[in-house]
C-alpha cells in the first residue's frame, strides 16, 4: 500500500472545507464568524491591514469551527424532526401497521437520522421551520 502523502491530506481537507462551504456559504450558518465580525473587527482600515496576519488564521479557524462543530450541532433537531416525520408519522390507530412498521422504523431510525444529519451538516438544506416564523417546539409554551 502506498504511504499517504501530506499533499493528499491537504487536498482532502481542502475538498472537505470547500464541500462544507455549501452549508457555511449561507451567512445564517456562520455563527462564530458572524460573532467575530460583529465584535472583534478593527474599526479603522489601517487596523484591519495590521491585524490581517492574525485575523486570517483566526477567521479560518472560526470558519472551520462553524463548518465542523457549530453548524452540525445546530442541525441535530432538524435531522431528528425529519427522521420522526419520515419514519414515525404513520397511522397509529392501525394495529397491524403499527406492529409491522415499528421495528422497521426502529432499525431505520439511526441510519436515516445519520444520513439526514450528515446531509444537513454539509449542505445548505432549508431548515424545517424558517426563522422568524414563530414556529418550532418552543412556540406556544
Amino acid at each position, binding site marked *: 500500500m502506498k504511504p499517504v502523502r501530506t499533499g493528499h491530506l491537504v487536498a482532502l481537507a*481542502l475538498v472537505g*472545507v*470547500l464541500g462544507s*462551504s455549501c452549508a457555511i456559504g449561507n451567512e445564517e450558518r*456562520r455563527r462564530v*464568524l*458572524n460573532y*467575530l*465580525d460583529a465584535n*472583534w*473587527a*478593527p474599526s479603522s*482600515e489601517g487596523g*484591519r491591514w495590521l491585524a*490581517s496576519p492574525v*485575523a*486570517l488564521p*483566526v*477567521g*479560518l479557524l*472560526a*470558519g472551520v469551527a462553524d463548518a465542523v462543530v457549530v453548524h452540525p450541532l445546530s442541525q441535530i433537531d432538524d435531522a431528528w424532526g425529519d427522521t420522526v*416525520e419520515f419514519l414515525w*408519522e404513520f397511522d*397509529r*390507530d392501525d394495529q397491524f401497521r403499527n406492529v409491522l412498521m415499528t421495528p422497521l422504523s426502529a432499525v431505520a431510525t439511526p441510519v436515516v437520522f445519520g444520513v439526514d444529519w450528515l446531509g444537513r451538516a454539509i449542505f445548505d438544506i*432549508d431548515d*424545517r*421551520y*424558517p426563522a422568524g*416564523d*414563530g*414556529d*418550532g*417546539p418552543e*412556540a*406556544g*409554551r
Partner: protein
Amino acid sequence: MSRRADRLLRSVALAAAASTAACSWSNKANRPVWNAFEQHLVPAHDGAFYATLPLTVPVGLVAIVTDAVIAHPIQVLDDAVGDAGTLWNEDGPDFQSAYYTELAFLPLRVVATPLFFGGSFLGRVLFDIPERMSAEERERARRQRLARQRAAADERRRRASERFRGQLAAIGDDPERTLDVPEQWDPSFAAPLQRALAGSALVRLRVHRSLLARGYVHFGSYDAEVGLRDPDPVVRHAVLAAWPRGVRPSPAALQALRGDPVDAVRELVERRFPR
C-alpha cells in the same frame, strides 16, 4: 499498457466525449455555425438539395465539429466566468462589516476560482446547462423558493393541526389513543380541547399526559395546572409525575397539592418539588 490498448482507450474516451458533447449540441441554440450553414447554404429545392449533398454533408460535419469545439465553448465562456464570479462579492470584499468572514474565505476563493471556472466551463461545453440568470431573475427564483418553503411548512402545519383536531374529537371513543400534539397552537384547537378536558377522567389523563410529554405546560388556551387541580387523584398524580423538569408549578398549585387528601400525591409533590 500495450500500444493497441492505449489506442483503444483513447478512441473510447474520444467517442464518450463526442457523445456527451451531444448533450449541449442537442440544443439548437448551442449550434450557431450549423444553424447558419443550414439556413444560408443548404438549398431548399429538392433537386438542388440532393445534387449538393456530396458537398453539404462534409461541410455540415465540419460545422458540427466547429460548433462543438470552438463556437459553443466561446458561447459559454462568459457564463463560466459568471459562475466563477459567484465565489466573489459583486462589490469586492466587504472588510468593513464582515472582516473575519472575508479574510477566512479569501484563500478558499483564490484556490477555488480557477477550479470552479474550469469545472463550469467544461460542464457547460459538454452539457446543455441553462445560461446564467440575471440578478432580477435570481431574485425572483429566490422569492419563489422561499414561497415554496413556506407553503411546505404551512402544509406540514395544516396536516398536523388536522390530525390533532381529529384525535381530540375522537378521544372520547378511545381514551387510550395517542395524541400527536403539533408544534404550534391553532385557535381551532380550543373548543375540542375544552370538550376533551370536560370528558371522563381517562380522557383528561390522556390529554394532559400527551401535552406534558411534549413539554407543554402552556399551549394556547391550555394550562396544565388544570390537571394538578383535577377532581380525580389519579389524574393529579399522573400530571404531577409528567410535569416537565425545570418548570415549577405556581405556589398556589403546590400549596394545594401539599394538602392533598391522597398520600401518593402528597409524597410525589414533596419528592418532585421540595420546599
